[in-house]
């Protein structure tokens, strides 16, 4: 394998992380309150956008607040779980060449977890609990588990970045929210660049050692994409915004044709990556009729 391109990228990303390092605990000016009559998320990005499932502005604004809390909570829980996996691998022989960058990754994700949770605790009732599955995922063997862990991180980061890159410059939302989205987008552009290269390398290594599991891995990664889309539609946001029949509204939103088309759009970049890397034989989007 020709490693020179990869090593150069690693060195460049680590240097950027050093140069752009900031203190998350002093970076933001937290206002005393965030007005509830303002949109906390642009209504275009709500889970019911494009449907007419909720049309009353007060309920939609409440939904925008709870969706913000859900979005931030997803980062806290999702990254905690994934940071555990990264922490298990840093400074082990298989990951030695990534150590420097993984330190930046863990440090930056720790900062993100803090500011996302801090927002929720300051201005709302706090973060939502995680929707943990009572079932344990079975392992696919060490090499394939490496692929799964970093694929999950990549999917997660691409979903966040879709919203962060847009809301980070959206004048409709309160300044503190715009600043949080922008700060996260700034760091994640490095993570995504690293993640794609790493997943590809880990995939090639696992495939060479154990080619029989290829299809199983493709299925799992695609199922994880579906799972991630669904996690945006936390049933609790529909209960909390006060809509009648919250589970039915959630289910109808999730399977609405406009939303299904949006899910494909949301996933386009990462879906295209998995196909180009040979990890997917067909794209998630084309097979994916119902999220």
């Amino acid at each position, binding site marked *: 394998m020709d490693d020179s391109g990869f090593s150069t990228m690693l060195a460049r990303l680590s240097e950027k992380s050093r140069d752009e390092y900031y203190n998350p605990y002093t970076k933001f000016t937290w206002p005393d309150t965030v007005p509830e009559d303002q949109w906390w998320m642009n209504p275009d990005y709500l889970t019911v956008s494009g449907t007419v499932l909720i049309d009353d502005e007060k309920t939609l604004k409440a939904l925008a607040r709870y969706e913000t809390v859900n979005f931030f909570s997803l980062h806290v829980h999702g990254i905690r779980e994934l940071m555990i996996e990264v922490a298990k691998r840093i400074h082990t022989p298989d990951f030695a060449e990534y150590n420097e960058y993984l330190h930046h990754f863990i440090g930056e994700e720790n900062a993100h977890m803090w500011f996302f949770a801090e927002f929720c605790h300051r201005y709302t009732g706090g973060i939502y609990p995680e929707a943990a599955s009572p079932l344990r995922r079975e392992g696919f063997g060490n090499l394939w588990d490496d692929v799964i862990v970093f694929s999950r991180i990549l999917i997660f980061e691409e979903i966040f970045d879709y919203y962060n890159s847009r809301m980070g410059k959206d004048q409709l939302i309160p300044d503190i929210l715009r600043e949080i989205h922008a700060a996260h987008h700034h760091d994640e552009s490095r993570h995504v660049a690293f993640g794609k290269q790493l997943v590809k390398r880990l995939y090639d290594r696992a495939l060479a050692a154990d080619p029989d599991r290829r299809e199983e891995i493709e299925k799992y990664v695609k199922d994880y994409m579906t799972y991630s889309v669904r996690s945006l539609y936390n049933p609790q946001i529909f209960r909390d915004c006060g809509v009648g029949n919250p*589970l039915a509204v959630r289910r109808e939103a999730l399977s609405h044709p406009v939303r299904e088309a949006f899910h494909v759009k949301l996933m386009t970049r990462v879906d295209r990556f998995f196909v180009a890397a040979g990890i997917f034989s067909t794209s998630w989007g084309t097979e994916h009729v119902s999220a």
Partner: protein
Amino acid sequence: MSARENSSTTSTMAHPSMDTVLGFLRELNASVDTIAWDRDLIEARVLDSLAFVEFLLLIEELTGEPVDLATTDVNNFRTLERINAFLTEGAGHAHA
């Protein structure tokens, strides 16, 4: 004796919501239509950890009550037979 028990739990006693449950599981794995009602759905690769969260929400919608995993054994959802029993009992409570 056991033959009678089997037939009563699988066909004659099926809760009306089992159609919706089977429809949901079919999307995950079409083989659900042919598997025995006492077969473990996780071992049969119908349900997995990723789909389970969504599955519990479906059960909540069908019974009208959230499934509290602190008090409800996950094993209640591992076979079609036990899901059917759970729905039947749940509906009984709801109408009581």
